[in-house]
């Protein structure tokens, strides 16, 4: 039913999205916490920075990534010299691009959900002898799980759709960085490629809707479990 090319694009998209989202989770939670529960000078600016990927055109962001993480870029050179990792032209680069683009969505969801957690529960936990870290892990975090799930979903879906930054930074390498959107783009570049493009678009949509429905179901289960 699916052509090998489509299967390759699909599995690559999944791999890239899973890695991107997986690696963003911990820093995402940390930054969401900073923004939801801490006050520090320059917070508004920091908040702005976190949101940058949302406002910059993906192509510009991809270019920025290229400048930073390209083999000649400051971070890229270091990664290459020390770990022999090259991000450009590799699925890791695609994952990085996707992660950067999806990060604000992840952070925002978690943050909102965290802000909604009743602080009085946290103080109650502290009077029961729990230190802030434990309070965070046993009260705040579990009560934030619906937000985390939502954030993961949004980020995942955003990663599946990421195009501009990926093609600019990681390029359009078949089997390595040619995710579904890039394959779609490629199909559109070929005269008469609309049919292929439509198939790929449907594939993207089906994937996203599956993810959405699954997460909805999960979220409901979760909400029931945490008794909200």
């Amino acid at each position, binding site marked *: 039913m699916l052509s090998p090319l489509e299967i390759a694009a699909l599995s690559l998209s999944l791999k890239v999205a899973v890695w991107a989202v997986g690696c963003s989770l911990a820093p995402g939670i940390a930054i969401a916490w900073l923004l939801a529960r801490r006050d520090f000078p320059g917070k508004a600016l920091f908040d702005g920075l976190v949101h940058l990927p949302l406002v910059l055109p993906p192509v510009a962001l991809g270019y920025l990534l290229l400048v930073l993480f390209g083999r000649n870029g400051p971070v890229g050179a270091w990664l290459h010299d020390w770990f022999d990792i090259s991000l450009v*032209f590799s699925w890791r680069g695609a994952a990085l691009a996707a992660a950067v683009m999806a990060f604000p969505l992840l952070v925002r969801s978690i943050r909102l959900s965290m802000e909604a957690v009743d602080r009085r529960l946290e103080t109650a936990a502290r009077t029961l002898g729990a230190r802030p870290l434990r309070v965070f892990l046993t009260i705040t975090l579990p009560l934030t799980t619906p937000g985390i799930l939502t954030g993961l979903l949004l980020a995942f879906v955003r990663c599946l759709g990421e195009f501009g930054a990926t*093609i600019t930074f990681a*390029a*359009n390498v078949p089997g390595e960085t040619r995710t579904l959107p890039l394959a779609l783009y490629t199909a559109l570049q070929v005269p*008469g490629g609309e049919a292929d493009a439509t198939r790929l678009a449907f594939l993207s949509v089906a994937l996203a809707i599956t993810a959405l429905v699954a997460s909805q179901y999960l979220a409901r289960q979760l909400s029931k479990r945490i008794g909200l």
Partner: protein
Amino acid sequence: KSETIEILAAASTTEAVTALSAALHQEHGLAMRTTFAASSTLAKHIAAGAPAHLFLSADIAWLNYLAAHDLIAADGRVDLLGNQLVLLRRTGDAGARGLAELADLDMALGKERLIMGDPAHVPAGRYGRQALQHLGLWGALKQRAVFGASVRNALALLARGQGRFAIAYATDLRAHDSLRLSATFPKDSHAAIVYPLALIRERESAVARKAFRYLQGARAKTIFEQYGFTFLPNTR
């Protein structure tokens, strides 16, 4: 021997280069991996250290950019392909059918739009502007021209009826059911359309050279011409 050749090629050469890489593998057992995007994007990848062996650009400017950065191997540059600039219309668009010669373009266009690549950065757009200027039409048409981000984008807009004519390459007409050729711009009305091929210095190797030569060979000529390009080098 297991080295894979990385070729970065302008998006408009997607089909031809894909076919060529299959042929190369078949004939010489060489693996060639293709990456397609806008020439600008690809050039910047190379400048950023992307592991590329070959670069097929749709625009000389980006090759010059790489040359300025001293990224091209000595003797590693050739004008590979040429193309023709054409004026396209939609199948069954009665108003557009009336165009007898390019000089009538203003009248045939009426209040409709002329779609072309952005002359600021899309080569086809740049050539189109040159041609219209050369024909003395630019002044009258400028206001009715709209710019797509790429030739493909311009064609999509035309196919959706967003304008009456679009300026594109002859190669774009292939297999596009809904588009018809209205006119071909005279060769002298614009700068020569050239797709230069370059061998990247950093990754220069015997295999890369071999592929570089193969792309200028007889088999390449057949394939490129099959997809509508003019083949420029003298076949060795």
